[in-house]
């Protein structure tokens, strides 16, 4: 088939069109400059959130809880929730650490209880005090650093260290649902610390086949980990209304969905605890 060559007139039109296009693109770039600090800030937040959406370790009660609440939370509240969840995840991940001082089953039960309390704390978190929040964050960060340092030391009581972090997380959640701009960097730094800690911990699936330590299969989380429409609202292209539950600054009742977010096992002892036995690694 012979293709006709473009006419000079057509080529000229193309050239003019490309030039106009280029000029227009430049005008847009000039009129709407991108805000580099915003882009960087959002990057850090997204990577922290990605940890929750695609957790590298087994989904834990607290993670599931926050993941369900996350789409409806405000940005700042979500960051706080991530920090709390990250703290809890890091704490729980310690159960798979092969240190002799750890009693995984008892610890997981404790974690489940924490997740239940966390739900209440998140539900009732009121107006924030930035100054207190800043101080608590600093302490929290110091605790994380200590934990990270301790991880390399033999014979350290990891449970006690982890409990400290959990307590800090809960304290943080109780004092504020707002994050001031001044605290944002600190939050990001804390999140980075958490990620660093989680990164050095062994994956629970590798070391922990025991059902008492990890309720549910960690490789293939069951229906409770993927609660269909509520966790993944709408279709890919048209996310459903649950992503936009009214005014995000004042999460309404839909942000606190009653019992469904309370993992059942958290309220009753696991078989191993009932027997007074802990299945360790």
């Amino acid at each position, binding site marked *: 088939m012979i293709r006709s060559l473009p006419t000079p007139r057509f080529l000229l039109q193309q050239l003019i069109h490309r030039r106009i296009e280029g000029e227009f693109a430049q005008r847009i770039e000039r009129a709407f400059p*991108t*805000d580099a600090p915003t882009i960087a800030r959002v990057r850090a937040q997204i990577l922290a959130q990605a940890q929750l959406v695609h957790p590298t370790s087994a989904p834990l009660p607290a993670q599931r809880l926050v993941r369900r609440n996350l789409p409806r939370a405000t940005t700042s509240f979500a960051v706080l929730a991530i920090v709390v969840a990250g703290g809890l995840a890091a704490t729980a991940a310690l159960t798979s650490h092969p240190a002799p001082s750890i009693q995984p089953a008892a610890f997981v039960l404790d974690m489940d209880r924490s997740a239940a309390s966390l739900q209440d704390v998140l539900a009732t978190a009121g107006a924030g005090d930035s100054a207190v929040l800043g101080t608590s964050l600093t302490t929290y960060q110091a605790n994380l650093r200590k934990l990270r340092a301790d991880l390399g030391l033999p014979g350290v009581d990891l449970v006690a260290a982890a409990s400290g972090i959990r307590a800090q997380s809960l304290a943080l959640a109780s004092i504020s649902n707002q994050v001031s701009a001044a605290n944002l960097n600190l939050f990001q730094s804390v999140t980075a610390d958490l990620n660093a800690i989680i990164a050095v911990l062994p994956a629970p699936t590798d070391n922990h086949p025991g059902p008492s330590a990890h309720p549910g299969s960690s490789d293939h989380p069951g229906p409770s980990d993927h609660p269909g429409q509520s966790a993944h609202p709408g279709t*890919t292209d048209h996310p459903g209304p649950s992503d936009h539950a009214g005014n995000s600054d004042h999460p309404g009742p839909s942000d606190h969905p009653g019992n469904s977010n309370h993992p059942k096992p958290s309220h009753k002892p696991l078989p191993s605890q009932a027997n007074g036995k802990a299945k360790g690694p």
Partner: protein
Amino acid sequence: MHETDIDRTVARAKLGDPTAIGELYDVFGQRVYRFVIVRVRSAADAEDLLQRIFLKVIESLPRYEQRGLPFAAWLFRIARNTVIDHDRTRRDHASLDASLERADGRRGPEELAEVALERAALRSAIERLTQEQRDVVTYRFFAGLSTREIALLMDRQEGAIRALQFRAIQTLRETIGNDVEFAASESRA
């Protein structure tokens, strides 16, 4: 990043690789931000939307089929729907100018005023386009999509997209030219 490289990165991101997610953000973050700022009036909204869009993308990644839409087109479909949902629920837009001026720290006051004028003219001109022309212009110039990607995204032929873009730019040139001249003469008066 080439389309095949993007596909490889997407495959890693689907497995939850945080580095891959970071790389995708590095490629598309600015483009999504620019796509969003032309449609909202508040810097906080733009930031919130940028974050929400990427979170949705990460959540939806397991369902993304590489044989279907190119990733960029798929991502901007999510972006567009998120912005539309946002428009439906939020009407309390504040000024975007302050944040854009902050982002533009190197420019002097005179130049900033000029840029603000141009921004207002551009935005107003884009709003006057037909819905399809507006979509093509924002996908092409704000999101940086190729004609092919826009065609797939809008379910049209590439030729039709080129025609829409051509007409849109012609209209914009006429409107912006008039607006800027009008605004300049107003400020002189």
